[in-house]
Structure formats: C-alpha cells, structure tokens
C-alpha cells in the first residue's frame, strides 16, 4: 500500500482549471519531487495534499485513508515552507513544540521530543533564541525540526531552499538528503530547480500548466523524457534540439539534418526510437544532450552508434570542470560539453560527433517522444 496516493485530482478556481487530472502514487520512504516552471501548479498540488486548499474532484489518500475532507492538522502531515514560516514571537523550542501544544501533549513529553529533534538537527544551542536572531540556514533547520517532531506519514517541502544563497543551498540539499536516508521518511518536495529534483528524488513528477507531463525515476526522466517539454526542462545545459527528416531510402531509417551552409548530417535512427513509427519524409526533432556531443576523439568507447561531422566553432565557454562549446548547426545553436583541457579555438573548424545511443527523436506535432 502506497503511503500517498493521488487519483484523478482536479482543481478548478472559477472557470480556470488549475490542476487537470493528476495521478501519482508514492511508496513509503520515497522522495517525490514535483518540478516544473512557475505557475505549473506544483505548489497548488502540494497545498491540496496538505489540505490548505480544496480540490474539485479526485481523491487523496494518505496511509490508505481518504483525506479529502480532513483538516490539515488531522492528515498526519508536516510542512516546511519557503519562507520557513517560524512564529516570530516564540523561541525556537516553542516553535518546534507549538503543534504538540495544540494537540494537548504534556509538557515533559514535549520537551523530550524537542530535545531529541534538536539533537538530530544540531540546533540544541539555539533553543532559547528567537527566529530573528538566526541565520537563514538555522531557520531552515528549525522549520525542519518543527516538521520532524510531528513524526508524520508524509513530509511536505515547499521550495525550502529558494531563499538561501547558492552555497548554502548546496549544503542544505545534502542535509535534506542525509535526513531522508537516516529517517526513511516519505517526502513530497516542490522545487523549480531541476538539479535539486535530480539529486534528491527517488521519483520525479514534471508538471506544466497543471498537467502531469511525466512521472518516473530521475534516470528515466533524464534519459527517456516522454515529451519535448520534459526533455528541454530537465538537464543543464538543456538538450540540443535540431530539426531533421526521416529518410528510408536504403532500408534502415536515417535522420537527415540539413545544414544550409554545409553538408547535411546523416545519422542512423537512434535505438531509442520506435522504427515502425518513422515514415519516410516525416519531420522529426532530433534531441541530443551536450554531454553526448563531443569531439571525434573522445567519443564514449561504449557507444555503439555515432556520427561525425565538421563544424565551425562559434563560442567557447570554459566553466572550470568542463568547457562548453557552442557551434551552429542548421540555424540552431548546439552546445557540446567537452573536457576542460580541450584545445579548441573560436572560428576553427573541428570534427564533432554525436553519440547516437543517447539520441532521442520527437514528433514535432505531438511533441511526444517517438
């Protein structure tokens, strides 16, 4: 039995449908990340799970029980907010213990629970301070402490790291991951940062305009995106997308990418694509991630299929650990990720290669992957 089950969930606000038929289930101990651009409905979805917002149709089950009509405090959930939402007039200890106070738990039990949580999060020395006296990272820990002490079935995180600076964000991300591994908690986590999604999740749900685009493990989402949106959204730098044409002239389907000022790139259709769906002459979108584009010498040795081509180098971006090279192909800019020591110069012509094992094809009309 899954800890969290969402079935056919819809939410309407007036005439606007904000969530359009969401189906997700999360097993115990799983880490579900809801990811998508601003306005896609991920925070709304989280709020409906919490009970802070109502739903128009569908069911939400936590621990097997339907919770649609239950008050947030009765759903056995705890939430960590983007702005931490700590009660400013209470000390850290009082903040953590407030929920227990509301539930009528006796003072000695409360104090024990607070002490144990404070130890886990290493905030014992902050218990008497007020939120205004804490740093951003400390406040985040207190917010997590308030959630932990509840020992809920499901933890809900609403973009908890967005207010932190870059370095702190990385540190806290690791903390959250460690916490997840230590406690085996079931977590639903909302973020717009796809790196957070990839690093933290056991399951990712990509949302756009209230619709679920794909649900899967990080690897599935990354390597087998179900449509153009997911392919483009996940991964940084984003996937290169080129226009191509199917050619079945000599039996096995090939993808032809025309380059106005150069000879076309002709690649055998990637293994990921369902060859039966490739009609001769059909237009396709050819997708390949920057790390699958390299110079001809450093192609992955395990690659079963590859294609080489010449191109002039447009921009070189040394990024420390890698060097990103931008070249022009068929009117589009293509980013290739190369080793840092690459000896490439702007304006030079160079041989590049596509690792076709990693290439993907998309239907331009339906945007779905072929």
């Amino acid at each position, binding site marked *: 039995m899954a800890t969290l089950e969402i079935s056919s969930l819809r939410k309407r606000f007036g005439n606007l449908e904000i969530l359009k038929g969401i189906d997700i289930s999360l097993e115990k101990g799983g880490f579900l990340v809801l990811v998508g651009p601003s306005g896609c409905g991920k925070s709304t979805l989280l709020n409906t799970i*919490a009970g*802070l917002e109502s739903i128009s149709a569908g069911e939400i089950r936590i621990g097997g029980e339907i919770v649609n009509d239950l*008050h*947030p*405090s*009765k759903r056995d*959930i*705890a*939430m960590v*907010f*983007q*702005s*931490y*939402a*700590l*009660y*400013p*007039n209470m000390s850290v200890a009082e903040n953590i213990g*407030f*929920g227990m106070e*509301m*539930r009528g738990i006796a003072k000695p039990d409360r104090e024990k629970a607070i002490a144990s949580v404070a130890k886990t999060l290493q905030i014992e020395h902050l218990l008497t301070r007020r939120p205004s006296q804490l740093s951003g990272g400390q406040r985040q820990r207190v917010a997590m402490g*308030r959630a932990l002490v509840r020992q809920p079935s499901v933890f809900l995180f609403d973009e908890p790291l967005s207010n932190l600076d870059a370095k702190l964000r990385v540190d806290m991300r690791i903390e959250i991951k460690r916490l997840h591994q230590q406690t085996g908690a079931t977590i639903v986590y909302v973020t717009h940062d796809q790196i957070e999604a990839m690093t933290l999740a056991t399951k990712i749900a990509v949302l756009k305009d209230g619709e679920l685009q794909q649900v899967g493990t990080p690897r599935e989402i990354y390597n087998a995106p179900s449509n153009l949106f997911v392919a483009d959204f996940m991964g940084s730098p984003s996937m290169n997308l080129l226009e191509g044409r199917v050619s079945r002239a000599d039996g096995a389907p090939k993808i032809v990418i025309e380059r106005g000022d150069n000879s076309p790139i002709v690649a055998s259709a990637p293994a990921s694509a369902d060859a039966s769906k490739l009609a001769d002459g059909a237009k396709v979108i050819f997708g390949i991630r920057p790390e699958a584009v390299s110079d001809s010498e450093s192609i992955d040795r395990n690659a079963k299929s590859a294609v080489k081509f010449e191109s002039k180098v447009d921009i070189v971006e040394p990024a420390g650990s890698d060097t990103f090279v931008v070249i022009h192909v068929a009117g589009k800019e293509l980013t290739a990720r190369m080793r840092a020591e690459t000896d490439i110069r702007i304006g030079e012509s160079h041989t590049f290669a596509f690792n076709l094992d990693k290439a993907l094809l998309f239907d331009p009309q339906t945007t779905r992957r072929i």
Partner: protein
Amino acid sequence: MTTVTAAPTSATVAMRARLQDWLPRLVLAPSFLLVLVFVYGFNLWTVFLSFTGSKAFASTRLIGWANYEKLWNWTFETDPPSNWYTAIVNMGLFGGLYIFFCLFLGLALAILLDQKIRGEGILRPIYLYPLALSFIVTGTAWKLFLDPRIGLEKAVHDWGWTSFHFDWVVNPRMMIYCVAIAGVWQTSGFVMAMFLAGLRGVDGEILKAAQIDGASPYQTYRRIVIPIMRPVFFSALVVLAHMAIKSYDLVLSVTGKNPGGAAELPSTFMYSYTFTRNQMAVGSTSAVIMLMTIAAIMVPYIYSEMREKAR
C-alpha cells in the same frame, strides 16, 4: 548638438562646483532654520517664560521655580479641586479611555474585517471618514446627538422608555466622558487602518503553518497574530497618546463654554490662563509640562525607529 562657447575659467568652474556642492544644504537650510527657530527656539522661549513672572504680557523678571511650585501645589488641591487638579484628572480619564477604546475598537474592527468578508470596500471608508472631519465638526455633531433635550435622551423617551437618562453632556462631572466618546468615534478608524495593514502584513505561510499545527482561529490570533502586532500597538499608542495630550478643539466644541471648568484639560488650562486670566507665566508652565510629557513619549519612540531604519 554641441554649442561652442567660451571656455569658463577654472576659477568660475571651481566656484560653480562648490556652489553645486553646497546647493542641497542651502535648499534645506531655510526649512531647517525655520524649524529650529520656530519650534525649538520657541519652545525654549516658552520654557524661559515659565520661569518669569509674566502676567498679561511677557516679562523678563525671573522668579525661579515659583510657577512650577504653584502648579505642583495645585496638583494636590482636591477640595475644592483646583483647575490644574481637574485638568490632570481629566487628562488621565480622557486619555486612558480614549487610548484604550481606540485600541480595542481598532483591533476588533481590523480583525473582523480581516475575516475575508465581502463589502470591505464599503465598510472600511465608513469607519475612516470621521478622520476627515475637523474636531470642531465632530464636537458639534456629538453635542447635538447627546443633548438630552433634542438628542438621544429625547429620542429614547419618544420611543417609550421614559425613564432613560443621558444628560452627560450637560452634566459637568460627566462631560469629559462625552469628549472621550466623540474622540473615540473620530480616531478609532485610524487605529483600525493601522491594525488592518499590520494584519495583512503577516506572512501567509505562518498562518498555514498554524493551520497544520492544529491551531484554531482563536488560538492563531491569540498566540501568533496579536503578538506579531506588538509594534503596531506601540505605534498606535504613541500616536493616540500624543493626540490625547494635544486635544483642544474637541473639548471646546463638545462642552461649549466649559461651565465651571469641569472639563478642563491641560490644553484648555494653558489657553485660559494665558489669554483670559492674564497669567502668561502659569500658562507657559503648563505648556512646558505638556511638552515634556509628549517628549517623554515621542523621543524614545523616534529614536528607536530611526535606529531600526539604520540597521
């Protein structure tokens, strides 16, 4: 488009630059000087006067603390009560009631309005419009409203409850309460506006967290929202206290000719002693005492606000 002009000499350039440097301060200077002279200078002048024996006209004959001693003695003259004693007692009564009820009503109305009700766009302006009125208009309206012969008492009699008495506004002992009623009517809307803005400024996520923690609306207000309102309380308190001490127009218009000085307040005391009784020094002394009281409230407040802004 460039125009060719004769190159200015370095001296004029330097002078012009220095003028531009000083220009801002020159612009500010007149206002600051006016304030310095007409506010601080005049206050010092009044303080000086309080140490003189001025009667109908200002005199420079210093008589030390005699005026202050006089007022100090009058503070304890309770039977028959001296004007100053009455003024202070009334100040306490009026000030206390005024501040308390403005805060209470203001907070209550703000909380009610914050409950996601419809019609706020109509209700809010209704609570606020009395602020636009002059205190004289307010006093005139309430004087009529509370007049026993043509106002409330008469109206209630007409409706059948003939033993209803409400002659406070002509009863010397009760007049000051009428002033308080009119004052609260006028200013509570303002306090409501302050609290409403404060309530709306509470982070929505804190309220969500309270919901998840299982706090009822009552508990949420009592344990979380109202404590967050503390700074607003203080702001409102300071503004109300300052208005209470300064009130003059309101008393005059509600009580008319102030029979027997029953509704005396420090502000009316000052005025009558200075201009009617020709005891300018005593009047100045009372003005200084008013000033000191206000300073005692405002200076720490302004200081703490300025420091916070600097942070």
